[in-house]
């Protein structure tokens, strides 16, 4: 645990120095720019749109970092051979994988925490000039704490994507890992549809394949509660907990898979 923690801190430091956090500048510019523009074009809907935009941008940036940093964090170590002196130290390959994953989660956590603060900041400034009687007519308050539920599930979502990226990069090239991870993510968005595939087509083989994909691939759709939160539809705590547990099971399976593969890999 301690050893994995040391690796995690190193991954975080590398992310900072590799300027991974530059995306935050883009996020801030996007959010502030959009709020100014939307504030002038819409009447009363601007807070809702900014919430929607802010949550979507948080998700997109999170997924982007999860895939592109996730696939490179192990492969870079192997390709550049920095793994050679590292594995001659008292650290197992499994601890290395665990540490890399924890470091990525830490990077994403800090990144998303800053994006969350920025989103609440913009919403605060937008709501400041709006009379209270107008604010009462909104579905949800500007500084709605329920936004945190959506952000928590976005974090769970990117945590699963990171585990997928790490799994593929434990044996594949960065390019292929990116393609595979993106593929799993996209198909996983439509996981619920795969379950109902027998209602759309009549080919037994296709139905069988769709069912198999449904059970194997993570259901990324269940982590997306952005619209519900923005429109004030309640998201029960039980749903969030169940989704987190579901994600945890996938993450555990993927990490064990990555550790098993990485532990048997020859570094030629």
């Amino acid at each position, binding site marked *: 645990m301690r050893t994995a923690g040391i690796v995690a801190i190193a991954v975080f430091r590398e992310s900072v120095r590799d300027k991974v956090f530059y995306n935050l500048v883009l996020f801030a510019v996007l959010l502030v720019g959009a709020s100014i523009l939307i504030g002038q074009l819409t009447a009363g809907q601007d807070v809702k749109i900014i919430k929607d935009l802010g949550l979507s941008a948080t998700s997109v940036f999170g997924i982007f970092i999860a895939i592109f940093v996730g696939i490179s964090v192990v492969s870079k170590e192997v390709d550049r051979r920095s793994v050679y002196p590292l594995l001659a130290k008292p650290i197992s390959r499994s601890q290395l994988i665990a540490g890399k994953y924890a470091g990525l989660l830490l990077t994403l956590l800090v990144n998303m925490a800053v994006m969350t603060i920025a989103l609440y900041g913009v919403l605060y400034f937008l709501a400041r000039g709006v009379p209270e009687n107008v604010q009462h007519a909104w579905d949800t308050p500007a500084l709605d704490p329920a936004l945190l539920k959506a952000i928590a599930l976005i974090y769970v979502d990117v945590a699963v994507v990171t585990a997928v990226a790490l799994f593929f990069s434990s044996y594949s090239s960065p390019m292929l890992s990116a393609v595979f991870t993106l593929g799993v993510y996209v198909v996983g968005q439509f996981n619920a549809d795969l379950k109902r595939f027998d209602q759309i087509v009549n080919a037994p083989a296709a139905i069988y394949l769709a069912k198999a994909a449904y059970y194997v691939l993570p259901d990324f759709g269940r982590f997306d509660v952005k619209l519900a939160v923005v429109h004030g539809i309640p998201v029960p705590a039980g749903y969030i907990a169940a989704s987190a547990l579901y994600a945890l099971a996938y993450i555990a399976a993927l990490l064990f898979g990555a550790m098993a593969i990485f532990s048997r890999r020859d570094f*030629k």
Partner: protein
Amino acid sequence: MSAPAIRTHELTKDFPVGFWRPRPYRALDRLSIDVAPGDVFGFLGPNGAGKTTTLKLLMQLVFPTSGTAEILGRPAGDVSVRRRIGYLPENPYFYDHLTAEELLDYYARLFGMSAAERRTRILATLDRLGIGAERRLQLRKFSKGMLQRVGIAQALLNDPEVIFLDEPMSGLDPLGRRDVRALILELRDAGRTIFFSSHILSDAEALCSRVAIVAKGRLAGTGRLADLQEFAVLGWELVVGNVPADALERVKGRARRVVTIAADRYAIDIAPDGHPEDLLRDLTAAGATLVSLNPVRETLEDVFVRRVAAVGDGAR
């Protein structure tokens, strides 16, 4: 005899080659060696002989197809053993974004050193390797030679009992090479076991108590240098000065070769049965002065060439 610090038994590694129908390529073939504690062991061989593969097998960076490897009596893959060893890979590469100090701090944490211990060890190790103010520069700004020094520093950070060095002189200038040679001898005097691979024979000759020669993945010879070298005299080298011209002419008929090495100074190559004492007596009688007379014995290079050639094309 004490238990070996390093032992390999029938260690073999095949790599698959080819995309569609991979065939095994034998990079190392049944290598069995023992390295005693306190030895400076030279692992010699031409390029592609299997030296780096052996080191990778010992570090468990690759896994053996068959056979075993042990370090300090434990299987090579044992994580606990890594607390007691140091390893310098060939052409080491580290994290660009870290400084030398930060890199060593990262590794020192993995060894579980306390903050005070880390500070002391890092300072001492960097000083020992002659890494001065550069220690606060990011490694991306380091030259190849400086990276090599950092590589050696990280291998010595935990004061290891056994040190594996893969081509330690690579990328170093003559001063750097001299420093590393002195460092290896210092480590030897401190009772450390050093296993270093090289194809630079002069380094091995100057440093090693024992060597192994590998060629085409096979062990071509192992033992103390003196045991490997055929101690029979291969000839004599006589160096003389002030030789009269007529005496020199007479000598040419009795020597294998006469070479002018300086003004009025000659190196005379005499066959093993060429009776150098007679030749020397005649030359001094004619007025020549003796500079030196030495037997010519087999060098490590001769042993190396002979052993590598003996492996022939049969292997692999």
